[in-house]
């Protein structure tokens, strides 16, 4: 229950950071995708089911405010959560390489899918431009953001787990 609450609060805080704080603070054209970080990290930390639900909630939040149709980003994010959940079997909290790789690949895939479904279908064929100006910068800046936010998310969940285990005994 506490873990659920923590996840929910994390989603809200990161969503607010991404939409309300970062655009005013960071002098960048392209912003990091914190929702991918929270979705992917919950996927490989807690398993497929959590990944799916977190992804669904993140995507739905985004869709309600910014989506053209409600459900598109929810679908993308929930699959990101699911596929990252597949890696929960080989995930160790001490190892940061796997999370970094997974989040980066997730963001790349998300970017490519966004291009295909939002731009390619409208006949905007200049893929190299979109790749160089949006997808790649977003991936890199998300990688940097992962280095900052992922350890925090991990530490919070670890701390909660240790506390709950203590209470059980």
């Amino acid at each position, binding site marked *: 229950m506490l873990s659920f609450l923590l996840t929910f609060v994390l989603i809200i805080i990161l969503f607010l950071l991404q939409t309300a704080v970062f*655009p005013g603070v960071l002098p960048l054209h392209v912003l990091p*995708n914190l929702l991918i970080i929270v979705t992917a990290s919950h996927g490989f930390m807690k398993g*497929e089911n959590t990944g*799916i639900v977190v992804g669904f909630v993140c995507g739905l939040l985004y869709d309600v*405010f*910014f989506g053209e*149709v409600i459900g598109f980003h929810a679908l993308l994010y929930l699959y990101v959560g699911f596929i990252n959940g597949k890696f929960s079997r080989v995930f160790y909290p001490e190892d940061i390489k796997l999370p970094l790789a997974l989040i980066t690949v997730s963001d790349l895939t998300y970017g490519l899918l*966004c291009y295909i479904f*939002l731009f390619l279908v409208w006949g905007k064929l200049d893929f190299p431009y979109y790749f160089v100006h949006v997808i790649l910068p*977003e991936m890199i800046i998300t990688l940097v953001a992962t280095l900052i936010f992922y350890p925090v998310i991990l530490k919070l969940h670890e701390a909660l787990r240790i506390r709950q285990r203590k209470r059980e005994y």
Partner: protein
Amino acid sequence: MSPIVKRKGERFTLPSKWLLFILTIVCSALMLFTFATDVFDKPLGTIVGYVLVPFEKGIGAAGGWFSGRKDELSQIRTLIKENQDLKEQVARLTEENTLLQQDKYELNKLRQLFELDEQYEEYHKVGARIISRDSGNWYAAFVIDKGTNDGIREDMNVIAGGGLVGRISAVGPNWARVTAIISDNANVSGMTLATEDNLIVSGSLKGMNEGVIYFSKLVDSKEAVQAGDKIVTSDISDKFLPGILIGYVLTITPDNNNLTKSGTLIPAVDFEHLSEVLIITDQKQLMEEK
């Protein structure tokens, strides 16, 4: 979480494949429904609006306060000098104003004489603050802190600094989403102010990065449109009120078909530094119904 050893207190968990399947169906259904109707838009918008918008307003206010303090410190010196200049200007303008008022009086009299009505009354406007921006990097949209409770409706036009910003594309009770005209999914029917030739102004991601908007389908057989010409919203647009400034022509090139022209224009609004906008509460459709 082994299925064989089930401890006490372990709840029943849905297999992830089923969860995935169910939520995929839910998402697809949501997409199909929202594509055709706005059944889910309203309740979801209401719930999310009441959970998140207060935070966003707070953050916006705090951010505004900080940048305000920063600006204040750096501007005090310039302000003193500016104040002197402004006082002189006020004196000059007061004089000018009295003259203009006389002129206006004369103009009104002449108008009555010619029985000319003004083409449109000045539009009613509501101010709003931007509280959040599209977090994705594909479109240019932002959320403002006014919604249906303040009389905002979908498709209302949004302006700032005398130029067109965009239109309201979604609205909740205490928030509304503005899709900017520079966004890749935005098209505006415009016309040149001088020659009244129609054209289509299309936002795009490429143009957004270069600080311009592309236009196309300009029929200009007399070669009269030049760089620097004003582009305003056209009379035939069904969403945008006529005569709102969009921007100034930067480049203009003939298309391959030799009939139409396309090019780029510089938007009248500085989209990079936008914190407050005005919403025109008069709507084109409604105005015509009256």
